[in-house]
């Protein structure tokens, strides 16, 4: 077992799968010689050659567009978009083709593509380097949207994503890349997609989050525990398709739910979870469902980014509000 941080886990998962499946190729800007601007693909080109680890020209539309062509022919491309603020030129191909090829051809062709992209704020990066666009993909039929929150989940979920026969948008929170390490076996064991992970059991309130915000969410749960408030913490992990079963089961027990995400509030994916609660969990709810999210503003440049990111205090305050509701 190695002690790995999240970006190392991403690296190992890709290396494992390239080693075991010759149809896996990695492509993107600076993924080869440079090993990726975050080093997520470091060593891969040396090991698997420049034909399987492709330093592409600088063009996101064509990165995803050509990856779709490769995928349809049976390759399993893992395409890196350098930052998710630069994924928009690829939206056309993701929306109009990746998630549709199987349906359009009645299963004759398919698109086993993984789009990896770092996401999120909090690392003092330049403009457009701090986006959380998960909601734009979770609305899209035919794809999966996966966001890991720890090295071991990054490893297992990325393996599952690459092996999945359909396209997966895999968003990696940059703030977690080097935040902490975990024992990761590097044994090629995938984790299941399409299910939430319960990170902490509790009976008073359910906290639902994903990605880097699980950091604040778990800190909030810890702080609440000091006050005797037992929060259950759920890592959504796969946003689409959404495992509401796990969330509903928890909220049925706790009667209270706070959803935490880093993306803007309006139209964020938290709304989908809250909407499901308003439909399927209404009679269990003892208090209004709270969403703790970024404000509906443009991600600010670095000086204000921690005013943008939901804080532990905001999560705790939201939990307190749900408890008032009792």
């Amino acid at each position: 077992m190695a002690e790995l941080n999240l970006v190392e886990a991403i690296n190992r998962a890709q290396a494992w799968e390239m080693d075991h499946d010759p149809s896996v190729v990695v492509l993107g800007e600076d993924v080869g010689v440079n090993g990726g601007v975050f080093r997520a693909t470091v060593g891969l080109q040396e090991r698997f050659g420049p034909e399987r680890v492709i330093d592409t020209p600088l063009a996101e539309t064509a990165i995803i567009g050509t990856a779709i062509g490769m995928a349809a022919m049976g390759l399993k491309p893992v395409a890196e978009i350098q930052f998710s603020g630069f994924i928009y030129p690829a939206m056309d191909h993701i929306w109009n083709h990746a998630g549709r090829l199987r349906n359009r051809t009645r299963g004759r062709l398919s698109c086993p593509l993984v789009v990896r992209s770092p996401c999120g704020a909090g690392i003092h990066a330049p403009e457009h380097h701090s986006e959380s666009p998960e909601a734009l993909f979770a609305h899209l039929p035919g794809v999966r949207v996966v966001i890991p929150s720890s090295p071991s989940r990054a490893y297992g979920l990325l393996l599952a994503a690459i092996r999945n026969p359909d396209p997966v948008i895999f968003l990696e929170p940059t703030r977690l890349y080097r935040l902490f390490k975990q024992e990761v076996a590097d044994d090629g064991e995938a984790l299941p997609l399409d299910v939430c992970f319960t990170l902490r059991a509790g009976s008073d309130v359910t906290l639902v989050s994903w990605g880097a915000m699980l950091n604040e969410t778990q800190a909030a749960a810890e702080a609440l525990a000091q006050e005797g408030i037992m929060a259950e913490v759920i890592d959504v992990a796969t946003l689409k398709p959404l495992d509401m079963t796990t969330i509903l089961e928890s909220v049925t027990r706790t009667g209270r739910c706070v959803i935490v995400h880093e993306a803007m509030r309006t139209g964020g994916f938290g709304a989908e979870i809250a909407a499901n609660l308003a439909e399927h969990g209404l009679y269990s709810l003892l208090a209004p469902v709270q969403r703790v999210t970024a404000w509906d503003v443009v991600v600010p440049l670095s000086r204000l980014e921690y005013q943008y990111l939901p804080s532990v205090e905001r999560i705790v305050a939201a939990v307190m509000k749900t408890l008032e509701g009792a």
Partner: protein
Amino acid sequence: MTTVARFEVEFTRFLNAEGEATQELPPFALDPANLIPLYRAMQLTRAFDTKAIALQRTGKIGTFASALGQEAIGIGVASAMRKEDVLVPSYRDHAAQFVRGVTMTESLLYWGGDERGSNFAVPREDFPSCVPIGNQVCHAAGVAYAFKLRKEARVAACFLGDGATSKGDFYEALNFAAVWRAPLLVVINNNQWAISVPREHQTITPTLAQKAIAAGVEGVQVDGNDVIAVHDAARRAIDKARAGGGPTLIEAISYRLGDHTTADDATRYRDPDVVQQQWANEPIRRLRNHLARIGAWDQEKEERLQKECADQVAAAVDAYLAIPPPTAAAMFDHLYAELPTAMKEQFDAAQWFASHDGGSSHG
């Protein structure tokens, strides 16, 4: 000032509008047995187009894009491809698709609003028609890359329109293919119009072939109404690609003799007289004249062929009309390899409503 780069664009034609050879024909074209199938395919496409427009008018299919006048392009190219090559077509490329083995019934099913029309029984790896302009060039470059990576001697071919040359996808894909030296053929069907926008408002370049220079790719221009010129250029490009020589861009100059689609009325924006004049250049008469001149074609053969085409089209239409409509379940069947658990409830609800209200009640 030093000149650091020089480029030229060449234009090729073998048969003029009257079907007279203006230069020595390429070897394949010397044998009429090679030309008659091309002629036949053009006639069949035209018969299909006529019928498809009629079917649209009577509500039997939806909006349809005819290839009228541009038959030589798809047929010239597809006939130069091997079975194992892959076609990545746009929405106006049924001429090429038919040569590849897509059936007219499948095509009607697609235009009739049924995804099963893209589940081709024969060219199993050919792409479905691409409606969003330009995307297919990226897909084709990716297909070509896959062939190259696996060291398969296969070529990807795609088509786009003159309007589509304005899209970033086209340049990005051409550049990727060039850098990858991928086995790709990109063919511009320059039919002079992008709906209502004439070729000269789309771009000020004297040729579209020169756009290849931006990617360092060979770009050539051919008379797209001369199936011999199209086939010859495609064959060279495909041979080159198969041999590892990388991508080629062919601009085939033709003319859109019909409306953009059945949803369009071209008299709103172009002079019918000009269109009338363009009939003088169309590809079928041209090849027929040539074949007649060399004694390989006559009135009787023509009549027999027309009849054959009509019969084939009629049979395809009958087969199409006999296909029962898809059920609501079809929306879910091929969305994912396996329907996710989270979607089961929706699937059941869709089935339930389909069987109860037939989904028919809309205000």
